[in-house]
């Protein structure tokens, strides 16, 4: 495995040397930091609702008495949800002050937040939704789902893809035949139709954690087939190379050959294939949640937040801030797409195995 680590570290250095690679790497690192410190960065918890401030537009900030204040607003009428600023009035903002309690990294109990409001006004950096929850806070928390689902999903499907593809390519015969028919079968059904049919087999309501793993399971179930087919092709050609034959003659077991000779040779491919397929998982989760079949209220995901924008009131009144989660999905997906392309250029410049 030493070779693998050398290979990945040189790949990583090459990635950072390219401007596009460096840019998306920084963007993604920032996103992951946001995901980890979402509680610290957000002023309100995801379930903190305020029915007095529904469909609130983003609040303005003002400078008063030597400190930043959040603008006070007055509701015009209950049903229109229109707000007018009260000139010169507001509540002071506090930095690193205690707010709602949370656990940093799920372990360390903390209550300090980057920004909190000291007073009756609410801080809505990106507006509020139909029950007065802070969209900015929810957006930060939604990062967790989108950024983790891709990683866990590809980890599962790459493992299955490598094992099935490697065994099929190495042993051939009946196993190969069955495995390949199975992948063809999975590819014969348009992805989302298969996704919906699979989702249809499970109950409507789960705990958020169960739902998360159900989505990962369904997406990986669909996703492993493409990887398996390509790994099989690579293993087939590796099998006739001299070092594999030498290992066979020396009496190494098939598992050991797969692990020690095949895996290191397809490892860089696996990394690139994984990066390229991450957007599929992010979009798959977002689509499922958007359709109301994935993450459910009151927990939060970008797709779920976007589905609130389907409320007719939202687009007739032009509440643009409901569309911000779409932008977040877009930036994440484009970053992974660019990252995947740059990695592919590094590893497979002639695009022998990996085509867009």
């Amino acid at each position, binding site marked *: 495995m030493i070779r693998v680590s050398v290979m990945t570290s040189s790949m990583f250095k090459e990635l950072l040397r390219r401007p596009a690679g460096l840019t998306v790497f920084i963007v993604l690192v920032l996103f992951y930091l946001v995901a980890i410190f979402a509680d610290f960065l957000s002023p309100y918890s995801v379930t903190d609702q305020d029915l007095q401030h529904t469909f609130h537009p983003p609040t303005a900030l003002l400078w008063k008495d030597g400190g930043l204040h959040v603008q006070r607003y007055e509701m015009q009428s209950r049903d229109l949800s229109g707000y007018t600023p009260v000139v010169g009035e507001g509540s002071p903002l506090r930095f690193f002050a205690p707010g709602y309690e949370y656990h940093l990294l799920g372990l360390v109990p903390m209550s300090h937040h980057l920004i909190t409001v000291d007073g009756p006004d609410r801080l809505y950096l990106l507006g509020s939704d139909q029950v007065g929850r802070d969209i900015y806070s929810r957006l930060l928390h939604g990062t967790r789902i989108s950024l983790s689902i891709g990683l866990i999903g590809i980890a599962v499907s790459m493992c299955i893809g490598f094992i099935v593809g490697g065994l099929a390519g190495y042993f051939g015969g009946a196993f190969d035949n069955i495995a390949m028919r199975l992948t063809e*079968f999975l*590819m*014969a*059904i*348009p*992805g*989302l*139709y*298969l996704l*919906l*049919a*699979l*989702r*249809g*087999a*499970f*109950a409507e309501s789960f705990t958020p954690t169960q739902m998360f793993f159900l989505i990962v399971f369904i997406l990986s179930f669909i996703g492993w087939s493409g990887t398996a087919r390509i790994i099989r092709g690579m293993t087939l050609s590796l099998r006739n190379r001299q070092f594999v034959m030498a290992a066979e003659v020396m009496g190494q077991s098939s598992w050991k050959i797969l692990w020690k000779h095949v895996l290191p040779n397809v490892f860089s491919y696996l990394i690139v294939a994984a990066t390229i397929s991450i*957007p599929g998982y992010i*979009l798959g989760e*977002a*689509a499922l949640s*958007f*359709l109301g079949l994935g993450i459910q209220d009151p927990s939060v995901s970008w*797709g779920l937040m*976007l589905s609130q*924008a*389907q409320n007719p009131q939202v*687009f*007739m009144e*032009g509440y643009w801030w409901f*569309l911000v989660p*779409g932008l977040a*999905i*877009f930036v994440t*997906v*484009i970053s992974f*797409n*660019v990252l995947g392309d740059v990695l592919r250029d590094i590893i497979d410049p002639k*695009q022998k195995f990996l*085509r*867009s």
Partner: protein
Amino acid sequence: MKALIIKRLLILIPMLLVVSLMVSLLMSLAPGDPVSQFEMMPDVDAEYLQRLRQEFGLDQPWYMQYFHWLGQVLPFSYHPDAASFWQRFDFRPNFGFSYYYRTEVWDLLVQRMPATILLSLTSLVLAWVIAIPLGVLAAIYKDSIFDRISQMLAYAALSIPEFFLALLALVFAAKTGWFPIGGFTSVEHDFLSPWGRFLDIAHHLLLPTIVLGIGGVAGVMRIMRANFLDNIRSEYVVTARAKGLAEGAVMFRHVFRNAINPLITAAGFAFSSILSGALLVEIVMNYPGIGQLVYNALLQQDAFVVQASVLMSVIMLMIGNLLADIALAMNDPRIRYD
């Protein structure tokens, strides 16, 4: 060629059997059935529900239901006591009865399929018509400003989720009022002249086509550019230029026809993602196609409708791939399928 078509159509049979078996199993795994939503109602008595279940065969195990369904589905039935001779033969497949829509599933499919096929085809055509010239230009003027900008736009277009784009289009339609919000035809469609009907459908189709087509434009453009670049460097281009052939002839008669081959194969694959994308676009933009049908059926646990729609999507995908293979053979005389 004939052998290819027959072989593909034969493969379709076991494929459809396995898919339908799987969908049946999946639908049966879901808790509850189409009748269970009535259990909550106080004025519906349990005996009636039991009778309904018996009538629909919902009290039997899933594999019995499946075999029952399979026994009826074949697209041929004979009605000896029909009035005229031709009415005795019925070539419509019997996909069962929709609990939710209260009609034959086949009739639903006949209503919805043309809308989805039309949407998929128009967005495929849109993608090709825009993307091929762009891809060729980007390859010929590689590394120019035009190439850079189109590459960046392609990245952006590939990364926008279809449902987000559909949502934006909906906001646009609602704000400007230039486009209808949802639907396949307007209310007065039946009273229009043939030309008016055509325009009416086109008007409803335009926004969904653009939304669905944009991702395709980016994908096709990138493949076209890469293929064109591959071929520009090859030796037959040097030969053609050395012969003194005009640059336009080299590019379009030689490079273009070679570069477009992988694209035709890709179109077959792209069909799968177009059908998936169409599903989302149909749901968000309220376009009455088969994707919207399967989604609503799933929410209502209308098993026969889900079953039939998934099978139709498989058939559409297979036929799309087959047409791509045939087109490939027509463009490239080196390819033989026997």
